[in-house]
């Protein structure tokens, strides 16, 4: 069950609509109102930007970003390679480390040492999310080889506002695997200071679908996130402090061999805590916008792995601490002689330390330092121009990066866009070329993470990695046709991304009964494919169809990179029954994929279908109910086995999800 309450003095303008895409200055659907703060989104970027709005999240009953982001063609979600119950995005075949995540335009290093977990971001605090695919724009970190995801948080300070939402889910067959969510958002002014507070908590119970095995199917987790933002207008400048605290406690139970003929039960606990503090100053200077942000991010992870429940002590406790410091300066001019110039500087360093406490008997404890305190530092400088040449908008730019361990690199990029209207048909075309460069992360170089208790494998870092370099081409066309009661939007994008030295996890020799993986550079990896989107609307019926074909191939072996389905699809039908009731059917298709570099094991294709009902009770109360995974597409229950299991199908079967939202202004 869920209860939401939103209390505010007055109603604000409608924010956004649904799944939309915008290009450059032709922003047409997303409308952020009542906020005088400088823009922190990508909408103004002269490259193809696709967005999802908070209204869309509401319609689709999404609780966190990982559920929503895969509704953008060519974007898929995978469980993090190093952490259960975490989600990371794959864009055009590249992911986790090749996708740059920003919060309000500021890069996020990580919210745990395992990478940025999209499922940590509650939808209640998100105004919209924007995605740029490929390495097209100079404005963002060169890490953005696969693309950029920018999370724009809610910042509507028109008046006091309070919103409460609660929801819960349970498997249809039994009462196992319950999920409970609560999200609270409050905004007000205290004198001249604008204050926003947000809290969310999502929980899931441990569950098991097959009692004959020791191995449990689903992890228990509690994800909490709290955000406090204070904003004050000082002269022409908007100053703010923004603190985001995230925690993620995951507990799973599984089995592993205790001898050569029997399995034993072990527990795996992961506790992650992240504090992200931003102090910023934004405002008009001369002929443009200046933005200066100081960002501190601290993460601490405790991993208790392979913990035998039969012993009173914890066998292995791994502690990882990271501290990231960033100074981000950006200046963007308004038009000067037809040119719009942007330039920026990013200074950053990351400090990491990893220790392992091992105990094999009650009185014997060993502490080893896996990664002594290490600091990696780099700085980046970018410049980009945007101007019109005939009917073309052209955005050339370059990004210079210096990394203390790997030296200098310049990544040039250029983007062309063409606009025309024929009658009531709008045409937009784009072509972009961009290069990218990414030095191996701390995690890839140094960390060792034992997943034997979760999926019977260990991932170890590789100090001999070299940086990735990429070249990305995007060619797209969008056609929009509108009539008074109907509209049609067709969208197609062809892409080719080449990454030299792509860093991916690959299996190496075994040193135990688990499979051992390490990071390695693939000489040349190419992802190419096609994304298609159709959105049709006729009166109260709206249909959306997204499909993508992506092949990601290691050119040296002509084999597919593991865990990349060739085909992805999404079909959504939304029928507005009345002003108060809407029905939604949403199906997602994930094609089969190879799960290893030898290309001899396959994760089968699957399709999930969710049936949703939204009901508005009054201006301030609404409720929703859905039958998720209606056709029960699941992987087989987890067995006690020494084989690594890689099956991308859901663990959770058919479930009933119900919630309520109270919103007042």
């Amino acid at each position, binding site marked *: 069950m869920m209860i939401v309450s939103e209390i505010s003095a007055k109603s604000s303008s409608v924010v956004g609509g649904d799944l939309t895409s915008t290009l450059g200055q032709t922003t047409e659907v997303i409308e952020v109102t009542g906020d005088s703060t400088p823009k922190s989104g990508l909408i103004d970027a002269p490259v193809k930007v696709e967005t999802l709005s908070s209204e869309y999240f509401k319609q689709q009953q999404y609780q966190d970003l990982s559920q929503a982001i895969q509704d953008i063609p060519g974007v898929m979600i995978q469980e993090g390679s190093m952490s259960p119950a975490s989600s990371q995005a794959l864009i055009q075949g590249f992911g986790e480390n090749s996708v740059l995540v920003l919060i309000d335009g500021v890069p996020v290093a990580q919210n745990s040492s395992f990478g940025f977990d999209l499922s940590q971001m509650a939808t209640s605090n998100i105004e919209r999310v924007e995605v740029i695919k490929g390495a097209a724009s100079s404005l963002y970190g060169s890490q953005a080889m696969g693309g950029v995801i920018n999370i724009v948080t809610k910042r509507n300070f028109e008046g006091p506002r309070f919103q409460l939402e609660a929801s819960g889910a349970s498997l249809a067959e039994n009462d196992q695997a319950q999920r409970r969510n609560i999200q609270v958002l409050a905004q007000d002014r205290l004198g001249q200071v604008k204050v926003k507070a947000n809290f969310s908590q999502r929980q899931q119970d441990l569950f098991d679908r097959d009692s004959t095995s020791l191995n449990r199917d689903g992890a228990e987790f509690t994800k909490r996130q709290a955000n406090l933002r204070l904003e004050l207008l000082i002269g022409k400048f908007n100053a703010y402090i923004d603190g985001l605290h995230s925690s993620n406690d995951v507990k799973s139970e599984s089995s*592993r*061999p*205790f*001898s*050569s*003929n*029997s399995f*034993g039960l072990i527990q795996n606990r992961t506790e992650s805590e992240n504090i992200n503090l931003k102090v910023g100053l934004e405002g008009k200077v001369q002929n443009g916008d200046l933005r200066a942000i100081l960002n501190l991010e601290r993460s601490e992870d405790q991993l208790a792995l392979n913990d035998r429940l039969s012993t009173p002590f914890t066998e292995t406790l791994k502690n990882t601490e990271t501290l990231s410091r960033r100074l981000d300066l950006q200046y963007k001019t308004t038009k000067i002689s037809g040119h719009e110039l942007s330039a920026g500087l990013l200074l950053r360093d990351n400090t990491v330390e990893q220790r392992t406490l091992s105990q*094999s*008997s009650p009185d014997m404890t060993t502490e080893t330092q896996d990664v002594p305190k290490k600091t990696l530092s780099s700085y980046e400088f970018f410049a980009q121009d945007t101007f019109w040449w005939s009917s073309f908008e052209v955005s050339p730019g370059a990004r210079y990066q210096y990394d203390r361990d790997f030296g200098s690199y310049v990544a040039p990029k250029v983007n062309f866009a*063409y606009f*025309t209207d024929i009658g009531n048909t709008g*045409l937009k*075309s*784009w*072509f972009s070329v961009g290069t990218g460069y990414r030095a191996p992360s701390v995690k890839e170089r140094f960390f060792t993470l034992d997943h*034997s208790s979760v999926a019977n494998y260990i991932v170890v870092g590789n100090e001999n990695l070299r940086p990735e370099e990429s070249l990305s081409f995007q*060619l*797209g*066309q969008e056609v929009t046709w509108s009539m008074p009661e109907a509209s049609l939007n067709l969208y*197609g994008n*062809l892409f080719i991304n080449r990454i030299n030295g792509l860093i991916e996890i690959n299996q190496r*020799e*075994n*040193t*135990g*009964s*688990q*499979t051992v993986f390490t990071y390695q550079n693939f000489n040349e990896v190419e992802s*190419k*494919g*096609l994304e298609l989107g159709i959105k049709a609307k006729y009166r109260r019926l709206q249909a959306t169809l997204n499909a993508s*074909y992506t*092949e990601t191939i290691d050119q040296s072996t002509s084999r*597919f990179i593991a865990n990349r*389905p*060739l085909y992805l699809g999404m079909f959504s039908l939304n029928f507005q029954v009345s002003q108060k009731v809407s029905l939604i059917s949403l199906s997602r298709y994930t*094609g*089969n*994929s*190879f799960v290893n570099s030898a*290309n*001899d094991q*396959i994760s089968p294709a699957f399709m999930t279908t969710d049936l949703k009902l939204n009901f508005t009770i009054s201006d301030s109360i609404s409720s929703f109910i859905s039958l998720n995974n209606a056709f029960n597409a699941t992987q087989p229950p987890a067995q006690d*086995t*020494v*084989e690594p299991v890689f099956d991308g199908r859901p663990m959770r079967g058919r479930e009933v999800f119900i919630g309520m939202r109270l919103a007042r202004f």
Partner: protein
Amino acid sequence: MNFFSILLGSFSLLFFLSCKEITAPQIDSDSNEVEILSYLSPFSPYIKDQSVDFFLKNPWYSYDQANHIIWPNFRVYGVRTNNQFYKVQFVDYYNNQSESGNYTVRYSTANGSPKIVNFSAKGCGNAFNNPDYEACLLDQEVNVYTYLNLETGDTWNMSDFEAEQNTTWHLAFKGTQVKLNSGNKGPGDVRLADLYLYGGFYPNVSASFQRLARESFTSKGLEFFNISFPLARAAYTLPSGIERVINEDSWYERYGIFHRAKSTNTWFVQTDDKNREWRFRILDIQEISHSNQVTDSKIIVGLMASESGLPFGPEISWSLPLIDNSKRLIRLCLDIDNQSIVECQNKNTDLIFSALNIGRRRVWRFNVSHGAYGPIPI
């Protein structure tokens, strides 16, 4: 249509035409045959004069240090004792409660069906799982081997001293240690041979614990055990304490000051002529004594030849040159193919006989140059 649309359309068409598929790989119908080829099968039965720590050279398990698990590698051994042959495989080291030192052994006679025997042979364990490890090592009741008789399947405990006098046991176990009844461990004649080991368990030399574990939790090596192998043709290695294939205690015995031939033992001897196989035995030892001392000795050997795998021919009697026991050291290099004495550097040397006389003590030895196997009682 603008330029971009034409480009997009053209490329899209090309993409559709070149779309790939993800399909399960074809399984080679001959894969079983390929698997069999990956067994190591030391088929030559001939061995050199060298005793080895058999289980150190041919271990029955690999230790998974990360998980502290002894994974049997399902190696199949041949056991030869009293001219009887067995196949033996160690399939488990744990009972169902994951307690170590609990063996499951699969064995059979040459043509018999597999039998399973379970027994405990914990000994003292180790310092990690036995808090009284040091004291246990001194405990004669606990720190003992468990002895196995392959003919009856019986197991029992006894002291090392008792074992040294006992011929009824064949193999003995204590923790991961295994010993056999021969050489300096017991009065028996047990010999072990490494028949085969699935090479897939040791890709790139080091153990693939993943594969070992997979086998442990499925058929436990039964398919390897069932591979047929001519047990009599296996290379049974020398046990510790026995240095020569034609070991002295097998070809003669002493009575008083004289030597007597054990003519019921025979050996197969490899010579430099690889197309020929020889059976070798000591037919007789003739000695002349004077003043309670043996002055001269004559050794008469019996030889039977087999050409290119054909049946052995009639036995030839060959008298070796007279041994003058007044000399300190006599060395005779024998060319069996030609029944002649040759220079020891000669490549035709097949056996080297040496007689060392130190006072009244006489030491006789046969060393093999190319290899031999035996003794086989006739």
